[in-house]
């Protein structure tokens, strides 16, 4: 709640005092929940073995670094996300453009695609691709995972692209028409280059959600970070340590991506958009 305007300067010290109190209270809550976790775990006779975790990340053997299962899983997650993102952009752009095209078939197809994907769970789509489509077409599980992820995120990317294209001022279209550019050239040379800047921030958000959704492919046993974590837990029973490590790795990945996105946003100023 915003404070009523005109707070006097003499309140400053009191405010600082309150801030410190609040910070301490928050710390107390953190410590308290940590203690609850610890107490709960010791009630289950849980044996904490944090010292065993680093070897699963990687270790030095003869001066050479060898990645452990968790880091290898992280690599697979990145690979999976990269390919899916590429395909997501293709699906999304195709859906957005055909929704904007004069063709009613394209319009209907894009609409059906978006509605089906948005109104069914990701998990069920993954099962459909993996259990129905993959055996018919002879895809392996990695390809099936990439396809399922890309189909899912593509429907959301379509909305992002559509919004980005529609945000380009009418004047740009009209000017391009006046110059006699073909429809392809208008998109290629005028609209899409400007839309890229608008589309970038929501697209990074999409990439973050793609990383998170990629954890789902552990269900079909693609060897990603979550799968490696689950396998290790089954072997070692270090449930808490490994799940926390896995969650921290995902957190590091998504936060660094968000930071990269805001850096990119600052580097690429909005040019020309909004004053056309």
């Amino acid at each position, binding site marked *: 709640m915003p404070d*009523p305007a005109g707070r006097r300067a003499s309140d400053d010290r009191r405010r600082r005092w309150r801030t410190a109190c609040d*910070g301490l209270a928050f710390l107390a809550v953190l410590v308290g929940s940590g203690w609850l976790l610890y107490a*709960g775990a010791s009630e289950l006779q849980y044996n904490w073995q944090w010292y065993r975790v680093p070897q699963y990340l990687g270790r030095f053997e003869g001066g050479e670094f060898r990645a452990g299962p968790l880091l290898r899983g992280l690599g697979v997650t990145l690979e999976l996300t990269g390919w899916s993102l590429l395909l997501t952009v293709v699906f999304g752009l195709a859906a957005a453009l055909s929704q904007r095209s004069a063709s009613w*078939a394209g319009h209907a197809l894009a609409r059906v695609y978006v509605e089906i994907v948005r109104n069914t*769970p990701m998990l069920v789509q993954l099962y459909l691709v993996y259990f129905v489509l993959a055996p*018919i077409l002879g895809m392996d599980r990695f390809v099936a995972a990439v396809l399922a992820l890309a189909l899912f995120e593509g429907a959301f990317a379509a909305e992002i692209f559509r919004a980005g294209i529609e945000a380009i001022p009418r004047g740009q279209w009209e000017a391009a028409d006046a110059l006699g550019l073909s429809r392809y050239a208008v998109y290629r040379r005028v609209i899409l280059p400007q839309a890229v800047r608008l589309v970038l921030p929501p697209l990074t958000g999409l990439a973050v959600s793609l990383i998170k959704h990629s954890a789902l492919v552990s269900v079909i046993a693609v060897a990603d970070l979550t799968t490696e974590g689950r396998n290790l837990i089954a072997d070692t029973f270090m449930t808490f340590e490994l*799940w926390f490590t896995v969650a921290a790795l995902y957190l590091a990945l*998504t936060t660094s991506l968000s930071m990269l996105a805001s850096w990119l946003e600052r580097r690429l100023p909005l040019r020309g958009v909004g004053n056309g």
Partner: protein
Amino acid sequence: MSWRKLRFGWLDALILAVVAGLVGYVFYRAQSHFHYSWDWRLIPGYFVRHDPERGWILNLLGQGFLATVRLALWGGLLAAAIGGVMGLCRISGSLFLRLLGRSYVELVRNTPPLVFIFIFYFFLSGQLMPVLDVESRIARASPETLQVLALLFGQPDLLPNFLSGLICLALFEGAYVAEIVRAGIESIPRGQWEGAAALGLPPRPTLAKIILPQALRAVVPPLAGQFISLIKDSALISLISIQELTFAGTELAVSSGRVFEVWLTVAALYFLLCFGLARLFRRLEWRLARRRDR
């Protein structure tokens, strides 16, 4: 697109041909390489079946669908409560509450749903359920209570499991609801706060009497969307063995061997539920907007 302008262009022909080609190829491969014989006749029997003693009863898919609806209802209510409180925390004047709300939201939104659900399920089923002593309470409950419980939450013997899944789901969706609530409150112009302050209204009544009633209007459409997301995310709960629609699908696909038919049916059920709700919400929103304009 207006239907008057409907014309059959070369692009339409191309797109239709490509779609027909793809679908045809998939069916051809299913027949020739996979030798799959489609058989849809068994599917209705998985919804309801006839029992010689009890008459018509729900079978796996029917029960699963009902469980998903129950999860959605209770999960939606719980998520709205958690999200409402946390959303208010996010905009509170107290740093403590802001930090609390912020860490909850960031923690949930930056871990994969699957990882979140696995971690919390482990906690809830291992620690909270014994503390609440749900199991022995059910054992002691009277038959009438059990009947009510069965109506509200499904089979009573699965209740602890159901509750763990429900709380996981609500905690997860609550973070998104909190963000919607925060955005809704922040969408109210500053002038409203300042006007109330000028009239001598303290912050709390300002929030309750002036800001929230206006924010409610901004919050309802995204909340409806989030409710549909909740239904979709409830499929994840099947992975911790809560017996809802996706779980029933997994079981049936394995036991009956009718993999293609079962998964297509499950997907269709989710689609009908979510798409139907989305249409309903859009209609309600449209009617509300029209009434407001008059």
